[in-house]
């Protein structure tokens, strides 16, 4: 066996040009697959890293009804039997081992009662937040100022916008100091917040666009104390917890939801708290980006098929060329199996070398793609190993026919031919 491998290397080396051209199909196929797989893996890791609490390990525990997040658009949507989160409950959540920080907020979404200069502002959400909100979710005030103690104590009518809301509402103006009306009550904008880590996905298909852009057009924050000025007292709150680590996120979310659900009145059976499954969301996005790229893998596989046929062709030529060698070997006592093994090994060694070169070029190509287009890439070691094994398999499959032909050569015929 080892002897066969050694002889195969010798044979391949003595026909360098021919061997390289034969391998080329395999090299191109494997290189394309490796670079595609690297891109998929890179994108997936990026999606995951960015979605998982923006690298901040935050989990949203929100109200769900029939499997969908329960959104409050107006007063009539407020579900019965669900109280504001009390300080006692909040302490209970904070005491959980998996939880580092907790914040509660009220939310109205797509409310139609926001006006700026008599123009209705559509699509924004509005949240009434406590003092822990920005520190828990990983936002920083990058323009203007944060809410201070007095804003809460004195029920000040002040607002902070996130960057998206600021962009939607004030295209060319400075929002700081501007006044907007919420349910006919004027509020003053005092600051703009932004996420510390930002996820900018690569939009390459229409599907990508819809999945990333389904987020709302921004959020407006007000001190929770001022919430009842425009909305009502004792509205149900959503909770965001920051887990101690990525691994704790699932536990933190589940335990928080359990605590909150105990506070819900037994008469309320439809609406319950549930942790937003970020991993599941990441998975959905990953599936989407993989689906397009998986089609590319199939196309690259065609090149492997063509490469395999090339290997078969050249092996058939090689068998014909070495007819007298085969005849001699059979005459001096080689079994059919030995001849078969020799040619199969040769084909497998040839395609394995092609596979290894292909993996190396694929990794190189992935790096170039990364440099040129900025798409995230990540090299998968198992995928590379599988690629090499797979090319070996191609050699064995497509080398089978020529090898069987060699093994079945009639030694008399083979020796006679010169």
């Amino acid at each position: 066996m080892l002897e066969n491998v050694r002889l195969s290397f010798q044979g391949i080396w003595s026909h360098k040009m021919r061997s390289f051209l034969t391998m080329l199909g395999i090299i191109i196929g494997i290189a394309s697959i490796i670079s595609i797989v690297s891109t998929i893996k890179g994108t997936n890791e990026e999606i995951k890293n960015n979605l998982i609490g923006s690298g901040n390990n935050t989990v949203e525990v929100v109200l769900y009804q029939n499997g969908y997040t329960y959104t409050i658009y107006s007063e009539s949507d407020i579900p019965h039997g669900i109280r504001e989160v009390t300080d006692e409950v909040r302490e209970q959540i904070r005491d959980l081992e998996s939880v580092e920080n907790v914040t509660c907020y009220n939310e109205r979404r797509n409310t139609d009662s926001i006006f700026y200069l008599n123009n209705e502002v559509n699509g924004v959400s509005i949240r009434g937040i406590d003092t822990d909100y920005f520190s828990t979710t990983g936002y920083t005030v990058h323009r203007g100022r944060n809410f201070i103690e007095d804003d809460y104590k004195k029920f000040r009518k002040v607002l902070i916008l996130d960057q998206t809301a600021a962009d939607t509402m004030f295209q060319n103006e400075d929002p700081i100091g501007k006044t907007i009306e919420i349910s006919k009550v004027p509020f003053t904008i005092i600051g703009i917040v932004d996420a510390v880590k930002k996820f900018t996905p690569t939009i390459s298909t229409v599907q990508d666009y819809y999945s990333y852009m389904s987020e709302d057009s921004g959020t407006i924050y007000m001190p929770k104390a001022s919430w009842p000025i425009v909305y009502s007292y004792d509205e149900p709150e959503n909770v965001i917890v920051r887990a101690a680590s990525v691994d704790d996120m699932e536990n933190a979310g589940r335990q928080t939801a359990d605590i909150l659900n105990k506070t819900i009145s037994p008469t309320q059976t439809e609406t319950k708290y549930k942790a937003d499954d970020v991993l599941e969301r990441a998975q959905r996005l990953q599936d989407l980006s993989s689906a397009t790229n998986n089609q590319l893998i199939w196309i690259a596989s065609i090149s492997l098929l063509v490469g395999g046929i090339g290997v078969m062709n050249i092996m058939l030529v090689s068998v014909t060329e070495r007819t007298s060698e085969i005849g001699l070997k059979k005459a001096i006592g080689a079994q059919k199996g030995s001849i078969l093994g020799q040619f199969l090994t040769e084909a497998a060694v040839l395609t394995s070398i092609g596979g290894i070169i292909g993996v190396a070029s694929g990794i190189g190509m992935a790096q170039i793609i990364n440099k040129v287009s900025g798409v995230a890439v990540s090299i998968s070691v198992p995928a590379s190993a599988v690629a090499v094994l797979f090319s070996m398999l191609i050699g064995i499959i497509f080398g089978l026919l020529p090898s069987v032909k060699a093994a079945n050569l009639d030694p008399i015929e083979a020796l006679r031919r010169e």
Partner: protein
Amino acid sequence: MILKLDHIYKDYIQGKMTVPVLKDVSLHVEQGEYVAIMGPSGSGKSTLMNIVGCLDRPTSGEYELAGKNILKLNDKLLADVRLNSIGFVFQNFQLLPRMSALDNVALPLIYAGVRKKVRREKAREALIRVGLEERVSFTPSQLSGGQKQRVAIARAMVNRPDILLADEPTGALDSKSSKQVMELFQKLNDEGVTVIMITHDSGIAGHAKRVVTIFDGELSEQKGEVAQ
């Protein structure tokens, strides 16, 4: 009796015609004999050689080699017979061009499953036996015709076969090299090797102790000395 051929017939089918190539051929060879089978081309001597060499099967007849009933063996066992009982020498040497003399000689030992170190030792011994100890690492293209044939003889002998089967061993050689090869055959025969040689050259056949002629597929024993 090392080799016993009895009533061998061999027919070839050509289109719708059956062409008889060997007709009732019987040949008995004792251990240690040196036999030449002589005949013109087309006489059936190559066919006979292929049957003796277990590369081909007769249409009918009996063949016993080293006590084995050859015609009852399957392909796998026939390969074993070729490996262990027969040493082939061909007119055109049939050396593998990319291998050294040593590797060429060691080739049958690979199929016999001999370990690499032992293979090299045995191959070297065989090359010493044919007087080529200086040429072990030469490739065939670096050797003269006579040297090539001696490498081929070393390869044939490396597994210590029961018979040495040579098909026109001097057919591609000049007279000086031919003489050397004939001397080598004589030496091996003196050491007890059974030699069966096929040739159309009566001068070469004359080196054998016993000459049988084949003509039109029929074998006849030649008595007495052969004209040089």
